[in-house]
């Protein structure tokens, strides 16, 4: 029997190498454009923050953090994040359990509604709380009668922060838990575990990286939010200024070194966030590969 070789003799066919690759000069140009654009828009601002903060030397830089108002701003930022991140974490876990593990009518509407705060501009997020709790707001007269301050005080700042960071954890968990299905939880229940135990021992370990990812993003936004808290804070130095608001106050007073010093702390927070995010993404991809359930691809 004739082999394929005799029917189709191996004629050297001229194949243009790598038809899917652009010529070298095109690649070099595109990479240069890409690097220049990223350099101009992303690296340059980072460099500018550090340069401006250190303009008058390391001494002046460190002195910026001796200021009581700066310390108060750092403290308030930490408080706002410490309340809003756990609040949205609990919500995210509850929402993901209800929306990913069960199927019911109106489910898609709820998923869409959870994303709503991302579509609302920060200034409007602040405004809605002023309309609710401000002196001219719905609850304003009642609140002032009982001497409760929400707007231009810490509770308003915390509320706004919760609003703008609302979807972060939920939107990471819902698609993942839905994809994972209910089989493992059901197995645990059949074996006699309680609902809580199933949640802690089966569900949480399965989604831990996504959970962490959501928390990291939520925290970064909580500490960095500016527009929304700016509307409700009233900018009282040492009392209702978060770090980003303190940056604005210092900047508008032409105290540039101090403004950029506080900004540099926030920039470092952003870089840590990006590093953690990359790390978690890498871990998530790894666990994806390791634990593809049989039968699915």
């Amino acid at each position, binding site marked *: 029997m004739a082999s394929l070789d005799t029917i189709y003799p191996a004629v050297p066919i001229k194949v243009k190498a790598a038809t899917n690759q652009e010529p070298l000069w095109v690649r070099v140009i595109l990479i240069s454009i890409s690097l220049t654009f990223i350099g101009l828009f992303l690296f340059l601002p980072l460099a500018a923050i550090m340069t401006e903060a250190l303009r008058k030397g390391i001494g002046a830089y460190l002195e910026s953090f001796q200021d009581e108002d700066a310390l108060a701003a750092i403290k308030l930022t930490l408080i706002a994040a410490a309340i809003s991140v756990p609040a949205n974490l609990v919500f995210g876990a509850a929402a993901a359990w209800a929306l990913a593990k069960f199927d019911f009518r109106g489910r898609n509407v709820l998923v869409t509604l959870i994303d709503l705060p991302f579509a609302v501009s920060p200034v409007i997020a602040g405004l809605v709380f002023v309309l609710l709790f401000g002196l001219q707001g719905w609850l304003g007269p009642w609140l002032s009668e009982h001497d409760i301050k929400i707007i231009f005080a810490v509770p308003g700042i915390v509320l706004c922060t919760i609003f703008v960071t609302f979807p972060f954890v939920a939107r990471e968990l819902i698609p993942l838990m839905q994809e994972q299905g209910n089989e493992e939880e059901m197995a645990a229940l059949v074996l006699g575990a309680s609902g809580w135990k199933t949640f802690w021992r089966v569900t949480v370990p399965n989604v831990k990286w996504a959970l962490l990812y959501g928390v990291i993003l939520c925290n970064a936004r909580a500490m960095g939010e500016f527009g929304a808290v700016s509307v409700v804070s009233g900018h009282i130095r040492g009392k209702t200024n978060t770090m980003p608001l303190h940056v604005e106050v210092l900047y508008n007073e032409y105290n540039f070194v101090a403004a950029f010093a506080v900004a540099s702390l926030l920039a470092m927070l952003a870089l840590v966030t*990006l590093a953690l995010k990359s790390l978690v993404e890498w871990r998530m991809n790894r666990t994806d590969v390791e634990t593809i359930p049989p039968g699915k691809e």
Partner: protein
Amino acid sequence: MNLLKKKHSVLPGFGLTLGYTVFYLCLIVLIPLSGLVVRSASMTFPDFWASVTEPRVVASYKLTFGASLAGALINAVFGFIVAWTLVRYRFPGKRLVDAIVDLPFALPTAVSGIALTAIYSKNGWLGQYLEAWGIKAAFSPLGVVIALTFIGLPFVVRTLQPAIADLDPELEEAAASLGARRLQTFLRVIVPTLLPALLTGFALSFARAIGEYGSVVFISGNMPMRTEITSLLIITKLEQYDYAGATALALVMLVVSFLLLLAINVLQWWSSRRFHGGIA
């Protein structure tokens, strides 16, 4: 009506978690937002219309939408190139570039605002050269475009990256073997396939820019009629205790945002159909 009624499942905790979800959602999001709508419903329509069409407001719309559009277009072009090089080519520093693309998400907007102002003001690193050419970057509409480009950049890149990675190499090989030059393949095969993702990224970047506040207020200079964005005007009205005016303006922006969100959802649906419904 069996709305919110689950189909049978043996897992516990449905009532508790769903109840808490709906309660928390209403408390934090739905009730506050509905307050805005109720508030503006208490205005008469002529009052509402007059307050959202006064000249200073219209000037702010023009700047906000114009600059957002310009920023989103710049991002569509350069974001495409960045996404393409990140997926297709290898070059030194690639992983660093890939990680830093998300910087505008992670950096607080006020910090980006003062950093960009420092760079583009007339004594800044780039501002001094632009000034020498007679271009005023900071405290002009151009500054607003720069800030909105910065803020929207990750949306285009992050939407395009998976789409480019998913491109079927056989399509390009087929085009090449049928005699298409690389540029033809790119324009006739690659761009049409990526179009839904590109449009989605563009729309996301545009939507984010419309509502942006922090990064713009420092670099824009906030001159009424010239460099004042709508978000800032809402705050200005609020500070003058013009609650009705602020609410009306906020409602207009909210409606625009929701329409954009709707458009983005339609685009994403189109995009997912293109990828899963096309070649079997």
